[in-house]
């Protein structure tokens, strides 16, 4: 009974330790990992190395794959850039397996003492220290858990237990056990670390443990696919690449093992030799070989990997819509070109704004799903442009360039807010079938304004276009208040419809305000290349037209 309790306690500590370590590492290093990953586009080797470092830092190839998938979705990476990163991340996760195979009992006791004293001295009050103390505590708990697991069977007849387990755990069962554990824990390294601990107790033979590791390797690929959730298109392709890494690793290591057996070698002895006589270290070496061989094969044959991934998850319309056309990572190095590219990307986003609105004039051609995809795509490009500007600010900009960069950032923020508002407005409009006259008037008015905005955005547009926009976005709260009062008075006729109409007027008002702010933000600043014209300072009066 005590043995079972000790085993479960060990497992509990192991899981808590892994969770603590993973979440604190991601908090402490998340931004750096993202920055590191963005440097991965230089070459396949750079991507593989960056992925290895990211995998070692996060200790989760799953997490790195999903970060990459979101970067692909956001247009920062192409799938071809991201595949080497995903392959490298798997190699990086081997670090913890290697550490777990080394006996660090004394070091862990000191680590627990150190973390405890740190908490007593309130060092965790500082955010940076708090994360690293969390990492240290996680690591300590992980090792304590392993120690519990290792010492649990001490009261058993080890030889007899090993014989029973050897009989029950056939290679196939071991493989499926590893697979199930990996899917449950969403990690290949957790079942492998468990295998390392159990092998050290001598109740599990090295030959049997290897099949658990192989199963865990394949299972973690499935776990990545399961956790991909609603990812589609090129983002999902990365999850398929992760499975390719796992399958390739299993095939290559499996083939090597088979070849060794066919050549008359004893697999158990061969593995012990690989581990320098230490079975736990041998498991770590096999785990590393699985990741390295699978990852290397996928990267070397990247064209084939890409084709297989694309076949199982073809690029979606959203992939196409969410890809920036002008900005790219390398452009950051030349700020003036970069700012020109940002201006073009922003102008492109503005010209896409009318697509986010329902077309009530041509309802047969209106497709809410296409609008939704257009909104997600536009949001991804705006997010990528925003990140690009943040990176640009990190460069040593001149005062003038910094000023333009900050203005560009404001423009992108406004475009993003406008995208969100138009999307919400569209959702409210979609609730009406058929749309009442007020909804038609609001929607078509907004579309007309956005069309004027798209005319005012190109670099060669006349400042008079912005003047017209200013006149069109003048305050109309009096009119909208009157409409709302009339709606409130008619509330008795239909609560939900009136609420939606009220919401539509609020979103319309917000959109108008944002267009006005954007119109002001689009005017050239006084210290830019285009000095403001005297004409641009006046509003167009009705008499001018």
């Amino acid at each position, binding site marked *: 009974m005590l043995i079972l309790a000790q085993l479960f306690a060990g497992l509990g500590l192991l899981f808590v330790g892994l969770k603590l370590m993973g979440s604190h590492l991601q908090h402490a290093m998340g931004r750096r990992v993202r920055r590191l990953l963005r440097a991965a586009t230089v070459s396949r080797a750079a991507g593989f190395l960056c992925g290895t470092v990211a995998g070692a830092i996060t200790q989760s190839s799953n997490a790195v794959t999903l970060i990459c998938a979101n970067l692909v979705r956001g247009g920062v990476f192409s799938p071809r850039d991201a595949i080497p990163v995903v392959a490298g991340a798997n190699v990086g996760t081997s670090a913890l397996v290697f550490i777990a195979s080394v006996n660090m009992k004394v070091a862990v006791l000191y680590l627990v003492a150190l973390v405890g004293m740190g908490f007593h001295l309130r060092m965790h009050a500082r955010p940076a220290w708090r994360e690293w103390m969390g990492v240290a505590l996680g690591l300590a708990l992980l090792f304590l858990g392993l120690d519990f697991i290792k010492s649990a069977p001490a009261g058993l007849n080890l030889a007899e237990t090993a014989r029973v387990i050897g009989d029950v755990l056939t290679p196939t069962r071991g493989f499926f056990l590893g697979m199930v554990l990996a899917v449950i824990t969403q990690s290949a390294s957790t079942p492998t670390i468990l295998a390392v601990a159990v092998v050290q107790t001598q109740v599990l033979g090295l030959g049997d443990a290897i099949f658990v590791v192989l199963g865990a390797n394949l299972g973690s690929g499935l776990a990545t696919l399961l956790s991909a959730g609603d990812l589609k298109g090129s983002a999902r392709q990365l999850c398929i690449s992760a499975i390719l890494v796992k399958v390739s690793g299993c095939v290559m290591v499996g083939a090597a093992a088979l070849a060794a057996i066919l050549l008359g070698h004893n697999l158990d002895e061969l593995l012990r030799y690989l581990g320098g006589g230490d079975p736990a270290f041998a498991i770590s070496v096999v785990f590393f070989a699985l990741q390295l061989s699978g990852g290397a094969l996928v990267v070397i044959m990247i064209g084939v990997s890409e084709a297989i991934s694309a076949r199982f998850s073809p690029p979606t319309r959203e992939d196409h819509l969410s890809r920036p056309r002008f900005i790219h990572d390398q452009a950051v190095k030349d700020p003036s070109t970069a700012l020109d590219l940002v201006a073009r990307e922003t102008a492109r986003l503005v010209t896409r704004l009318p697509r986010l609105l329902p077309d*009530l004039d041509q309802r047969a051609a209106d497709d809410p799903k296409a609008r939704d995809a257009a909104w997600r795509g536009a949001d991804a490009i705006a997010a990528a442009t925003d990140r690009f500007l943040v990176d640009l600010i990190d460069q040593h900009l001149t005062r003038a360039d910094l000023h333009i960069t900050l203005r560009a950032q404001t423009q992108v923020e406004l475009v993003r807010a406008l995208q969100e508002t138009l999307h919400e407005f569209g959702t409210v409009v979609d609730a009406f079938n058929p749309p009442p006259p007020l909804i038609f008037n609001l929607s078509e008015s907004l579309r007309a304004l956005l069309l004027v905005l798209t005319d005012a955005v190109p670099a060669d547009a006349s400042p008079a276009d912005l003047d017209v926009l200013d006149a069109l976005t003048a305050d109309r709260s009096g009119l909208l208040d009157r409409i709302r009062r009339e709606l409130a008075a008619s509330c008795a006729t239909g609560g939900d419809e009136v609420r939606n109409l009220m919401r539509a007027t609020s979103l319309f008002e917000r959109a108008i305000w944002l267009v006005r702010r954007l119109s002001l933000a689009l005017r050239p600043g006084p210290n830019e290349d285009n000095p403001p014209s005297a004409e641009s300072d006046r509003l167009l009066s*009705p008499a001018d*037209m």
Partner: protein
Amino acid sequence: MQIETEENGADTVLKVSGRLDTLNAKPFEGKLLEAVKQSNGCIIVDLTGVDYVSSSGLRALLVAGKAMTPHKRKLRLKSLQPQIQEVFDISGFSALFEIA
């Protein structure tokens, strides 16, 4: 959509009836720009017979209004039905044109 053109002294009056929607906006814009070129006075668009205006219709009017600005001439709108007046008020276009 139907458009009748009349001369009223130096001014040109366009009597429009029907729907100013996406399908009709381009021909309407063409007629307006043609009138801007040929006339030396104001352009008056009589919307008595118009019962529907979409964003494309509003844009056509704006294009014509912008084409007249360099000549310091005016585009006037006339006899808007209440529902059409509301579209102009909500969109802010009533601030751009003289409406009688």
